[in-house]
């Protein structure tokens, strides 16, 4: 028998490794997108469950950020109110204010005379006639002290010791409690983020697992033909990426819609308190970070499940 020597696949047939890598990735990308689009309802369901699971901690996190921002501005007003005794005259109050301004731990002192306080009360309370019926001004002189430095409590203690002082109003305890509540809320958001992020991961993992099951035979054929683990895994990883991207976009959309729905009522509420507070959403950078995070989540879910499957289907390594 004559045996013609035929060349094995020539080296020239094979492009460079980066080109092969890029080609195979593009192929997997397009193939996985095709699979996503061929099953629109299943895809929508997966993306919706993931998106909702991610929107909740994301929304809570934004609420917490806004609360922190809001309370930050409250906390910046660290004023201590010193109500003077009724018998302290205006000039004595001015002298005391001067003495306090000289202290190193005081940034500023403002005097609010009984007349100013009464006028403000009359305007704000609508009880003008009742106040007129009193005959005399019952309000004391108030010194509004703005502390300098960090030890507000020590300053408050020193102010309480003043013989002219009747009552010192300092909200340190309230602020500490608020801080504790904010810290607790932040931790709740973190725990929810982890739990719901894990939920999203499992959703992707389970969806990819079902997809692997439905394509088990095809994967088996590819393995027999010499497909590497990477080649088999790649379309599933891109599937996870598409799910993650879809879920991220949906979560951002839901947060945006919720923000729009809350904006006007919140503006009206804060205006009624004389505040210009406005709800702050996610900027482009943070939205990008969220999208990258959800894509990574989808990728990780798919990677875990395909890795488990590939380990199970390897030939005996004895």
């Amino acid at each position: 028998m004559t045996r013609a020597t035929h060349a094995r696949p020539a080296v020239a047939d094979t492009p460079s490794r980066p080109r092969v890598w890029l080609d195979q990735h593009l192929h997997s990308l397009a193939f996985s997108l095709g699979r996503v689009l061929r099953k629109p309802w299943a895809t929508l369901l997966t993306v919706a469950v993931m998106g909702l699971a991610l929107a909740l901690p994301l929304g809570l996190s934004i609420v917490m950020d806004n609360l922190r921002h809001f309370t930050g501005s409250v906390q910046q007003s660290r004023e201590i109110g010193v109500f003077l005794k009724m018998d302290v005259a205006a000039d004595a109050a001015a002298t005391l204010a001067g003495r306090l301004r000289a202290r190193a731990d005081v940034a500023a002192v403002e005097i609010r005379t009984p007349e100013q306080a009464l006028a403000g009360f009359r305007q704000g309370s609508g009880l003008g006639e009742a106040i007129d019926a009193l005959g005399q001004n019952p309000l004391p002189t108030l010194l509004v002290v703005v502390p300098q430095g960090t030890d507000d409590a020590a300053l408050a203690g020193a102010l309480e010791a003043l013989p002219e002082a009747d009552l010192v109003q300092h909200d340190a305890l309230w602020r500490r409690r608020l801080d504790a509540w904010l810290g607790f809320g932040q931790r709740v958001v973190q725990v929810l983020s982890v739990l719901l992020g894990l939920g999203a991961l499992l959703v992707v993992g389970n969806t990819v697992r079902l997809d692997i099951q439905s394509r088990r035979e095809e994967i088996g054929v590819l393995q027999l033909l010499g497909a590497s683990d990477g080649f088999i895994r790649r379309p599933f990883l891109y599937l996870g990426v598409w799910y993650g991207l879809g879920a991220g976009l949906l979560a951002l959309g839901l947060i945006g819609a919720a923000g729009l729905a809350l904006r006007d009522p919140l503006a009206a509420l804060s205006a009624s308190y004389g505040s210009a507070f406005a709800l702050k959403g996610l900027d482009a950078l943070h939205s990008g970070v969220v999208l990258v995070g959800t894509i990574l989540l989808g990728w990780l879910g798919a990677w875990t499940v395909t890795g488990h499957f590939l380990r199970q289907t390897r030939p005996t390594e004895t």
Partner: protein
Amino acid sequence: MSVLRFDSVSKQYPGGHQALVDVSFEVAEGEMLFVTGHSGAGKSTLLRLIHLSERPTRGTVLLGDRNLQRVRGGKVALHRRQVGVVYQDHRLLTDRSIGENVALPLILRGTRRAEIGKRVRSVLERMGLGHREKALPSQLSAGEQQRVGIARAIIAQPPLLVADEPTGNLDPTLAAEIMELFAGLPERGTSVLVVSHDLPLLRRMRKRVLVLDHGRLVDDISPQDLAE
């Protein structure tokens, strides 16, 4: 130079079943041979060892000069690209066209797209399927599907092609056609090992035949002996 060599190969499965016992043979470059035997004789195990779906309990399997015992991890996939496989049930991907099925081994090797298209058309022409490139496997007859399977197995010009009962589901005429296709491969540099228990077909083909019985290689019949 041998393409494939079994050296005192034994295979015992975890349950204790002894599938192969001390089997030794060689397949020469450009040779076509058959492996036959009753059901349970060890034919499928032999193919699984070549394809690294299993590993021998004892002995050595060499593909060219590569000891398959040392092929591990990611290299298993590379090894499988060197062996074309044809199955009785074709194992085509049902949601991909004939052309896409045949192209798979080249895609796995990272061959250029233009080259893939050229070689797919060429091999399908050789198999008489040039006009069915866009068809789905379900639109083809059993014989045509088997030819697609062969096209896929040989498109990357592997040094060895193994076929597991490739004509088991075909009528005698189609079976003869398929065997003629196999018989033409050694001329193109691919050695062919066909597992079959179709004795009339084996007699007609007049190729070397290895006979397995209860895991032992009990006969190695040359074409001349077969003719006699």
